């Protein structure tokens, strides 16, 4: 799904690096702070990172006749916010570009922006707003995750369209063409990913809810209520 090596001409690949690098650096700062101040979240951080690893390796066939994979970034965005998610995404994207020839080093900036920053950022904002509005926690996780996944591919389409405007339709014309490939393939995958993440979050609430309170994902009264409905 990632933009292939060498497929973004100048100046686009540099632009996406310039936008992504500050977020990654801020994420590393946040990550350092989190790990040194709250040792107890480290296992959960590992789960969020591993989740991105697993989901982005699953190439799932879709109704459009092509395959794509989920991003797995929604969970990390909800738990740790978009900047830390960007750092985790860099690790996964580096693995895939160095060992699998998927994505690439020159397109890393663009791929980190779509998968690690834009999708997670929208998901994070959605989650916070919806949880303030009192939406059911699992429904919220489901929607936020599906949005993170889908936004990633909409942004990828936009990145390609900006670099390859078509002769007739311009940027908008190519955006439609790229979005037709990515966004429609991704709709069923995004729904699937949202459902899976909601289920994993249920188990986290069950066995390690204090960390969620610690991370400001849920208030303690919300946890008590969720646990009551589980009985």
């Amino acid at each position, binding site marked *: *799904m*990632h*933009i*292939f*090596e*060498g*497929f973004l*001409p100048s100046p686009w690949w540099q632009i996406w690096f310039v936008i992504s690098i500050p977020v990654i650096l801020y994420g590393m700062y946040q990550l350092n702070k989190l790990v040194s101040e709250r040792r107890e979240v480290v*296992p959960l951080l*590992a*789960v969020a*990172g*591993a*989740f*991105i*690893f*697993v989901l982005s*390796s*699953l*190439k*799932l*066939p*879709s*109704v*459009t*006749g*092509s*395959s*794509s994979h989920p991003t797995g970034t929604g969970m990390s965005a909800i738990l740790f916010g978009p900047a830390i998610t960007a750092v985790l995404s860099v690790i996964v994207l580096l*693995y895939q*570009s*160095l*060992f*699998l*020839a*998927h994505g*690439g*080093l*020159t397109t890393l900036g663009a791929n980190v922006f779509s998968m690690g920053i834009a999708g997670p950022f929208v998901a994070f904002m959605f989650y916070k707003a919806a949880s303030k509005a009192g939406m059911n926690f*699992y429904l919220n996780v489901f929607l936020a995750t599906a949005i993170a996944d889908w936004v990633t591919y909409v942004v990828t389409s936009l990145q*390609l369209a900006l670099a*390859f*405007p*078509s*002769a007739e339709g311009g940027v908008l014309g190519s955006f439609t*063409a790229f979005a037709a*490939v*990515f966004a429609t*393939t*991704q709709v*069923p995958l995004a*729904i*699937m990913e949202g*459902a*899976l993440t*909601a*289920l994993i979050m*249920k188990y986290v609430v069950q*066995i*390690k809810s204090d960390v969620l309170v610690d991370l400001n994902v849920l208030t303690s009264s919300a946890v008590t209520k969720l646990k009551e409905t589980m009985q």
Partner: protein
Amino acid sequence: MKLEYIVGIIVILFAVQFLYGVAANPDSEFGGADGAAEDVIASINPDYEPWFGGIGFEPPGGETESLLFALQAAFGAVIIGYVIGYYKGKSEAN
């Protein structure tokens, strides 16, 4: 309704959309969407040549690529299983 049942239903629906995809696109090999995007680039700008070749390791074939993808998934799954199990054991010990 239990969340597990809802997720189960979504998984079944996902399988159904895949089977429908197979029926609707009988000739498709279900290649990657990134490959399809490459075709779109080729139709917009037929002269475009990737200006940078990969410097990473290129899997020598589909089989090795599957191996590396499986390793990636297995590595992640082990960590998730370990941590969830660790938390569960800890919460039961309390």
